């Protein structure tokens, strides 16, 4: 019986052309700048969608990745793919469902330092370090989170690709692009959900790019 099921699965895989699915590595490439002395930099990426030339959309539901500047292994994600990629879409942060689902493990384990216990929810984006601007150095402590209604900070973004890639993809991450947009006197420290966190979250898509 088991063998029959196995044969059927194999046959249907061949018939529907699923065998051409392969894993495409998506690498997050951190671009640093002398103006910023980074201490901690990590963020969640979730609900990744690859829009393909053949019209298919490869979507990963309920999958969250914690990309950590200190952990090389966390900077490469392998995604199912079956054709040239026309665009990649993802959520910077975690969706609201993840934030109300109780204890989760893996990248969503609260021991990863990306969970607020007193006001339940994930820190979607954490950036800490010293930023030098106009001869002055400012300590930066951005913990951007909040999932509920007007406090929601997860940002969906889509990056179209100019050249049609299918074997690998590199996404550049450049935190100074964000820091240069901040009012450095009022937006250097955010530790709670709210209006200020939402304002900064809207700037987050600007730090991601693909140079193809």
């Amino acid at each position, binding site marked *: 019986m088991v063998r029959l099921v196995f044969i059927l699965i194999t046959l249907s895989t061949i018939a529907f052309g699923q065998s051409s699915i392969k894993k495409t590595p998506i690498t997050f490439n951190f671009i640093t700048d002398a103006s910023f002395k980074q201490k901690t930099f990590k963020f969640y990426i979730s609900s990744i969608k690859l829009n393909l030339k053949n019209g298919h959309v490869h979507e990963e539901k309920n999958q969250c990745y914690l990309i950590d500047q200190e952990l090389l292994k966390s900077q490469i994600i392998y995604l199912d793919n079956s054709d040239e990629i026309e665009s990649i879409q993802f959520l910077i942060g975690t969706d609201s469902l993840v*934030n*109300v*689902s*109780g*204890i*989760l*493990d893996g990248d969503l*384990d*609260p*021991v990863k330092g990306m*969970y607020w*216990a*007193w*006001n*339940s*929810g994930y820190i979607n984006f954490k950036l800490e370090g010293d930023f030098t601007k106009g001869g002055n150095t400012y300590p930066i402590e951005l913990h951007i989170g909040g999932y509920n209604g007007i*406090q929601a900070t997860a940002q969906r973004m889509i990056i179209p690709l100019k050249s049609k890639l299918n074997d690998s993809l590199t996404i550049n991450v450049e935190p100074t692009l964000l820091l240069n947009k901040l009012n450095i006197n009022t937006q250097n420290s955010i530790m709670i*959900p*709210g*209006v200020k966190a939402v304002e900064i979250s809207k700037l987050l898509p600007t730090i991601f790019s693909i140079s193809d």
Partner: protein
Amino acid sequence: MTKLLTLIFIISSLFIFGFNYNDRTVISKITPPKNWPKPNYNFENNPITEAGFKLGRKLFYDPGLSRNNTISCAHCHLQYTGFAHVDHRVSHGIDGKKGTRNAPALINLIWNTSFHWDGGVNHIELQPINPIEHPAEMDNSLINVLNYLNSSETYTALFFEAFNDSIVSSSSFLKALTQFTGSLISSNSKYDQYLKKDRSFTQQEENGLKLFKKNCNNCHTAPLFNSNRFENNGIPIDTLFNDLGRYKITNNPLDSLKFRVPTLRNIEFTFPYMHDGRYKTLRQVIDYYTEDINIKNPQLSPQLRKKIVLSSNEKKDLIAFLKTLTDKDFLYNKRFSFPR
């Protein structure tokens, strides 16, 4: 002789094996008492086993979860007082440090949609991280707790028993605690027995029930005698704490000074009352709602804007009714007590 020894060995092995097997089987889905609403947490992803429940209980009573091995969950949540912190206005934790609120009673938690006086915690499984990491409570970290548990042979064996994995993770640790705290169900008070017609009320209690339905049930709604809402009951802010309640969570000015409506089950024993424990007796609470409340306060909860008028005797009747919500089976249930 050897045969006899072998036989004894086999029988005892079978006994031990059988016992372990029973400890691992799902004991029961929590069945809500008749006419109660459906619980918000149903153990679907965390089925209760005897082993998991007992492990959760052991953790609940273990001061090893705190930074210096002095404070357990039970330190502020004592069974005999409905798992509340009796006799202290605000609860105190590690090194005698004081918090800013009175530790709430742990009763019928699986019906809650949020936790803490300000509702900041959205899930029963994740609540324990707060007292563990709070500098005035246990002042530890989740990672330290996991290290402590993983370095204990007793605990790794118990976790294997309960979750089939001897490596203790955030998930197994918090789920074990939830199997215990989620089981703390109080549904056998005199009031419950009265509803089932197993016991009758005195004239005073009957009258108290009528007064309660008329004046209190809107917020403290039977059968749970709470609501999952946050209300401003008008008690003036204590400038010692400047606690704005729900506002701290939502940043919505309309939520300023709103707090969770707590359950009144076992209220006789969960004193002192209010989020900051400012009232010691039920009489003081009722005097506040009937005499001292400023019904013209524009922020006051709409349910309280009509003055509640009670005579001195009616206040006594109301208190007599509130005492029928005491559930001795719950307060003295050995299953919930320190495991001896």
